């Protein structure tokens, strides 16, 4: 990925993304790379959804891993315990998570700043604790096994197959995100981010748009959660922990808020980072914390927008 691609116009960006994800496997020396790459793709899809809320809508959520975990457990329980076909289970979980987000979104998104952070954090933690405690349904802290993902009798098996599922989903998610941003809803959202009162004054129903984008980002997380459960074959409540929620927001902010490709870049970097830091062993947490602080101090707008600004400056100077 070079800087020129990131600077390309919107349509060029989507084509370039499709090209990158199609060609990336050529550089994978072994199967382990596929496994890491699938996780990166999945995180990227969640972050593209979360970026709509955080980056464009300007609303923070410190509980999105909860929605991811609900999707995962919904699929695991519906397919495992009740024998529902995986696709139907995925759709039902997504619908249920969407409904939940819609219902709690109303009162929560009236809150601002730190109060909103507190409320979303609370919802995430409550979901995490429920998943840990209701062991008769969820298997408790030990986790639960999940069957393979089958569509019309065909199973998605192996990391290679999952790579293409993830890649397709990411391109689709980015396409939705790019179109949404330029739709009336996207414009309304950006107006909310700029000034909520200003948006209201010109007639934007800010509450409605905030709830809609919150719901949409929760559905993104739920769908990916379902796929993750099937791909992994085993899930524990910790996929919905507070730390996971933080990780997701950090990916969005690190890559660059209000930048769809920034969210993708942030997700990929932060998924690969632990693999690279593995050699630091005991110092891993310190390095991760240091990177989070350093990026925000020196590039408060995130990687991609900061790079773009730096390139622009160089061009202007030349």
């Amino acid at each position: 990925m070079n800087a020129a691609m990131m600077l390309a116009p919107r349509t060029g960006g989507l084509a370039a993304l499709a090209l990158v994800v199609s060609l990336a496997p050529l550089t994978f020396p072994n199967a382990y790379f596929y496994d890491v790459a699938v996780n990166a793709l999945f995180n990227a899809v969640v972050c593209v959804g979360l970026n709509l809320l955080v980056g464009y809508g300007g609303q923070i959520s410190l509980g999105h891993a909860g929605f991811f975990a609900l999707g995962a457990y919904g699929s695991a329980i519906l397919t495992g315990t009740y024998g529902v076909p995986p696709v139907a289970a995925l759709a039902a979980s997504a619908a249920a998570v969407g409904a939940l987000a819609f219902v709690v979104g109303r009162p929560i998104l009236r809150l601002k700043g730190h109060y909103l952070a507190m409320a979303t954090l609370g919802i995430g933690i409550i979901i995490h604790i429920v998943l840990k405690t209701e062991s008769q349904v969820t298997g408790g802290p030990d986790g639960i096994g999940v069957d393979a993902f089958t569509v019309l009798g065909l199973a998605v098996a192996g990391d290679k197959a999952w790579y293409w599922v993830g890649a397709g989903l990411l391109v689709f998610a980015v396409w939705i995100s790019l179109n949404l941003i330029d739709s009336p809803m996207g414009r309304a959202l950006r107006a909310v981010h700029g000034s909520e009162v200003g948006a209201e004054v010109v007639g934007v129903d800010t509450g409605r748009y905030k709830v809609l984008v919150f719901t949409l980002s929760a559905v993104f997380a739920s769908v990916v959660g379902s796929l993750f459960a099937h791909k992994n074959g085993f899930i524990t409540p910790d996929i919905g922990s507070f730390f996971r929620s933080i990780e997701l927001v950090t990916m969005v902010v690190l890559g660059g808020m209000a930048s769809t490709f920034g969210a993708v870049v942030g997700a990929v970097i932060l998924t690969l980072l632990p693999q690279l830091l593995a050699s630091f062993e005991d110092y891993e947490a310190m390095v991760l914390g240091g990177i989070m602080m350093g990026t925000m101090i020196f590039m408060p707008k995130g990687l991609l927008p900061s790079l773009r600004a730096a390139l622009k400056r160089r061009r202007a100077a030349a």
Partner: protein
Amino acid sequence: MFAEFLQYVFAGLTSGAIYALAGLGFAIIYNASHVINFAQGEFIMIGGMSTATMVAAGIPLPVAAAAAVLVTMLVGVALEKFAVEPAKGADVTAIVIITIGASIFLRGAAQVVWDKEFHALPAFSGETPIAVLGATLMPQSVWVVGVSMAVIALLWWFFNRTLFGKAMLATSFNRLAAQLVGIGVKKVLMVSFALSAMLGAVGGIVVTPITFTNYEAGIMLGLKGFSAAVLGGLGNGLGAIVGGLVVGIAEALASGYLSSAYKDAIAFVIILLVLFFMPSGLFGKKGTDRV
């Protein structure tokens, strides 16, 4: 019946006092800088861990406790100097990520300096339970509540009776006006981090004999402290204390009468319910934004 209830209230007051100290820490930093310091829980952990290590090495408790408070305050000041001050003017989300990054960094550092094991500290004055109206009260609980009250009284004196404390209050009301009358706002920011670190450390030291401590002990304590601060209305000191006690007692009652598995969820259920109906907490100012 009543004895059982009293027993839960004692337990609630003990943990509530710690939440109140942490909540106050959040409030003080928020007032000085509008930053929510997610590393507040790590102050509690560092205070407890340092004291436990020094006492285990044979240093007398009062000396160890004083040294631990000092170490934690230094960490607080360093956090302000190297992570929060350079990011001045960044938006809320960026600052949230910075302080969360700091908390992960400090946990990682604790893992390197110490280990992943639990560390214990002997109770300050024995473990003979005191009988009160049929319930039993551990001496260490008295220490927790007593020390918390003393610290809160000291803070009250600092903010209301000393010039610098008043300067800090003035800064929280109106930063620009405070600057115009010659208050060193930078110093205020640094002192606020030192004070919050002190509150965390003191809480960590008095609670460690009851709960033990390890490098992750600060996570939940910090989040509960944040709930306490939000419950009372961000930036309201008295609110944070009341919020802490409410969270602590509700938690103890719920885990006693309902389900102990959901003990940790109670704080967050309460906070969600309160925020649904009172979006600025119990004692928060009704927000009116200037456009």
